[in-house]
């Protein structure tokens, strides 16, 4: 392929409004995150009403089942509107409603401990930022910044997981042995229990746990520094791997992050273009030769 072909091939996908595509991908991923445990939330909804817990630590309104219902449905509705609307003010408003609802879920007595809402909150923060920048004349810069923020956010979330595991109980595998290997009903752990003796299982748990610590540490420290597309590929593989090798409920935690990681794939390649000074990027992000 000659240089002209390279530029022509690259100009076709650039016609896509990449920032808008990125925004919609992340909204769809947040919806998957929120609705993945649909059955679980339905059961939780009735149980929280049946068994309230009065705790002076939480303000009353953050113990109320109505608050958690409104916040959950508010976040679903706002994200859904953000996904489909083309009306810019509505998109901005819905992004604020989504992060507001998600913030409530992150500190409500019934939902604060669910990492689903923490990862979704970070994606909502990214969404608020992007929703207010669609009027830019430089879409290429915008999508590069969006991708940079996406891998920065994924890095800090992985680093948060890693830093809390820099402790002997995780290095020995003791914690994950108890949580996963003893009785977790998931294909990998069912297979290992059926195949290996308890002594061997403890050894497997040790190495399983160590690889988790090492992979999260390396990814947390280094993912943000990779080129956009490589970071996207690495993050999608890593986050998918966590789900496949841990438990299906983590889909709700990881789905929005996987969507966020995919933004890196939308960053246009620059290397060939940069070699040709006469080829410039227009204000709309379309290449002009």
């Amino acid at each position, binding site marked *: 392929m000659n240089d002209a072909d390279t530029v022509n091939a690259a100009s076709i996908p650039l016609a896509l409004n990449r920032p808008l595509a990125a925004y919609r991908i992340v909204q769809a991923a947040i919806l998957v995150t929120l609705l993945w445990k649909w059955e679980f939330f339905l059961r939780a909804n009735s149980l929280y009403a049946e068994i*309230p817990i009065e705790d002076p630590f939480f303000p009353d309104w953050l113990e109320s089942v109505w608050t958690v219902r409104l916040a959950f449905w508010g976040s679903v509705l706002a994200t859904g509107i953000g996904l489909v609307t083309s009306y810019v003010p509505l998109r901005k408003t819905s992004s604020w409603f989504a992060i507001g609802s998600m913030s409530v879920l*992150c500190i409500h007595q019934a939902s604060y401990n669910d990492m689903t809402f923490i990862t979704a909150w970070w994606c909502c923060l990214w969404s608020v930022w992007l929703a207010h920048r669609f009027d830019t004349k430089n879409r290429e810069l915008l999508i590069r910044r969006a991708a940079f923020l996406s891998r920065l956010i994924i*890095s800090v979330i992985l680093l948060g997981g890693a830093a809390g595991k820099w*402790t002997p109980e995780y290095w020995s595998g003791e914690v994950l042995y108890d949580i996963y290997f003893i009785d977790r009903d998931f294909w990998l752990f069912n297979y290992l229990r059926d195949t290996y003796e308890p002594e061997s299982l403890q050894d497997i748990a040790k190495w399983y746990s160590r690889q988790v610590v090492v992979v999260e540490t390396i990814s947390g420290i280094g993912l943000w520094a990779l080129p956009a597309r490589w970071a996207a590929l690495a993050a999608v593989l890593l986050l998918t791997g966590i789900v496949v090798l841990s438990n299906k409920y983590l889909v709700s935690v990881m789905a929005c992050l996987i969507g966020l990681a995919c933004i890196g794939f939308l960053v246009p390649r620059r290397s060939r273009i940069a070699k040709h000074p006469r080829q410039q990027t227009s204000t709309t992000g379309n290449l002009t030769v």
Partner: protein
Amino acid sequence: MADSSEVSIIRESTERDFGFHAIIAFVLLITTWLLLMPWFPGIARQTLQRFHLRTPSFAVWAVQFPVPSMYNFANQYKVEEFPPGFVMMVFDENWRYANHFPARVITFFAGRHDYLSTQTDRWFTLKSSYRGQTLESRFHLEAQTEGGYRLIRIDDVEDSL
């Protein structure tokens, strides 16, 4: 590493973006907090208290929510039918590990379903450890006649903070 052209277009652009830089600063702040946690006991102590819902102020607890903490610390719990030290009729005899926020065994859906469906009193003990620091907390879940429970923190907690 990121190619230089990509970094430069982000850094050298004349388009000022306060929100972009604010998010970077926010992430850097949290990263610093996380990286210092193993070396500064005060940070780990804050997190231990956060996990046990024992932060002195709700506001201080709440502002920490963006700090990611998936599968953090060695968190254990046990649930008993009688007060600690009374009769050793242990509901769940063994300590079990929880992935993060061990107080979830009290407040979260699964814990309420497993331990609080009977509408009888329960006593929970939580123990979290991180690099030599340990925090142990006890909670009495007192069944209410009108339904539900009242959470009472038992004061004689042991810790090595």
